[in-house]
């Protein structure tokens, strides 16, 4: 008898496609023969928008790439532009950037853990992780003025300094957080059902992972020792003591384990950065880039004119092109910016980790069960805002 595969459309309206991913699955009973991700439902043309705004305006668009970890996006973008400008930012702002980026990594991983666990059926973990994420978002709210799209970093530093209250609360969070992770661990990490659902599922070898261009926890899950924070240290990552968690099987469980370990490491990094936080300015002392302070504007006409120049035209960035990669929670977020010497990027290409990781989707899914599709969507940790740009 002739048989053929059943074609089903998973998404864009589906409870667990994390926004607007559409998957066309060919299934043979419960087995997935082929999976084809269709992207683009959340395309907003951020690369193009970037060409129409001055370098500082673009930050607001960059926030909306991976909207659950906006600050790491800003970090990546600001680093790129700073590289092009050839400036180094003050130590204090490097530390502050590292702290907020690691906080963002924790909150992003918490959201990932929540949805991953929810998709696999452990609903309670979802609300426990949101409890902790709330603390981080509250801190962001206090520091940056917004919870998700923070618009916190500036080219040449950060926009606001840490308050003593912020530091106190963050210390307290760092002390409590490992215990909270233990709670999730008991609920899922050692649970036989969870292990059954994740171990040996969607295995990818180190070589293949590299060939597919995977990055971040998805790459390290296969045992490839590649973390940009270690390989090409930036921020304050080389000034603190931390380790890179590595898996060996390259399955869903190892990637899960790595992200949970990374939360521990991030807590470590935050605590050390807070300990070592140097005094000093939070913005680079370069009047060509950083607008004068409000007091100065009120006091002297030169500063006012200068402020007008910077706000209307933006600062000029020397002609050239640059690629700069940053380790964000999802993997390697790279910006490739071409400048023609004006105050707007001539071209901005974004290497979004979600998009590249999604490329390995068919490889990870085919041969598995329909239930594994959900586990894989969770394990590559995609955010469609970043994927579709």
């Amino acid at each position: 008898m002739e048989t053929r595969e059943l074609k089903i459309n998973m998404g864009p309206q589906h409870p667990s496609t994390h926004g607007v991913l559409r998957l066309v699955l060919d299934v043979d009973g419960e087995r997935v023969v082929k999976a084809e991700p269709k992207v683009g439902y959340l395309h907003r043309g951020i690369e193009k928008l970037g060409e129409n705004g001055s370098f500082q305006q673009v930050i607001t668009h960059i926030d909306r790439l991976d909207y659950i970890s906006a600050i790491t996006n800003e970090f990546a973008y600001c680093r790129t532009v700073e590289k092009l400008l050839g400036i180094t930012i003050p130590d204090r702002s490097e530390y502050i950037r590292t702290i907020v980026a690691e906080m963002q990594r924790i909150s992003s991983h918490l959201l990932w853990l929540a949805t991953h666990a929810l998709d696999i059926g452990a609903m309670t973990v979802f609300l426990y992780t949101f409890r902790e994420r709330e603390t981080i978002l509250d801190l962001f709210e206090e520091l940056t003025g917004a919870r998700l799209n923070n618009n916190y970093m500036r080219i040449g530093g950060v926009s606001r300094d840490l308050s003593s209250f912020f530091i106190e609360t963050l210390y307290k969070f760092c002390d409590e957080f490992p215990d909270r992770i233990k709670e999730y661990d008991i609920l899922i990490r050692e649970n036989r059902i969870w292990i059954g659902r994740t171990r040996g599922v969607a295995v990818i070898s180190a070589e293949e992972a590299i060939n597919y261009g995977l990055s971040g926890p998805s790459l390290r899950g296969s045992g490839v020792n590649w973390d940009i924070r270690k390989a090409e240290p930036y921020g304050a990552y080389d000034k603190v003591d931390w380790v890179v968690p590595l898996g060996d099987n390259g399955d869903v469980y190892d990637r899960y384990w790595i992200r949970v370990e990374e939360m521990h490491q991030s807590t470590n990094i935050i605590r050390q950065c807070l300990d070592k936080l140097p005094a000093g300015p939070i913005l680079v002392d370069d009047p060509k880039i950083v607008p004068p302070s409000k007091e100065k504007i009120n006091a002297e006409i030169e500063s006012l004119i200068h402020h007008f120049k910077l706000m209307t035209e933006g600062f000029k960035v020397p002609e050239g092109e640059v690629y700069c990669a940053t380790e964000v929670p999802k993997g390697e977020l790279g910006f490739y910016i071409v400048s023609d010497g004006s105050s707007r990027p001539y071209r901005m290409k974004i290497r979004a980790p979600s998009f590249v990781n999604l490329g390995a989707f068919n490889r990870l899914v085919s041969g598995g069960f329909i239930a594994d599709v959900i586990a894989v969507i969770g394990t590559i940790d995609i955010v469609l805002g970043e994927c579709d740009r």
Partner: protein
Amino acid sequence: METVKKEKRSLGFLEQLYVGEVVKGLAITGRHFFRNLFIHTAHLFGLMKSRKGAVTVQYPEERRVIPAGYRARHRLVRREDGSPRCVACMLCPTICPAQCIHVRAGESPDPAIEKYPVEFNIVLDRCVMCGLCVEACPVDAIRMDTGIVEMSAYDREEFVNRRDLLLGMNPQTPPLPKTRHG
């Protein structure tokens, strides 16, 4: 690079029986259940009000305190005589990445001041709440300190905040405690 490897271990016989881990998980959820049930019951009798059983904020009745630096809905600041402080310099419409601010300048009746906004519209449904307008303003005329986070309307027209509406808004009151964690 220093790394930490995942500990390799196969499951012991007891773990393969599922039971132990399931019981541990049940203990965690059960602890939360009985603890919160106890606290909620105590609340009924007016006891233990200081301990919260749930992290929920009962929104319309109970509101979070919004921290001082929060970028909420905009307002325009007035001078002492009640006229807008804005001098219609056009910096905010220029810097706005969402292009949601529209200003039409007019000659100010006050001879000491050159211009003033005849029209000042902020189209809230386009606004991305980035706060660049506040940063750009040289005379500190626009602020985002109203503490209003509820921005909904039945009609797109209602999202267009005109000058007088913006001038009529006040900063968040009372002056804030630092945050709700304090």
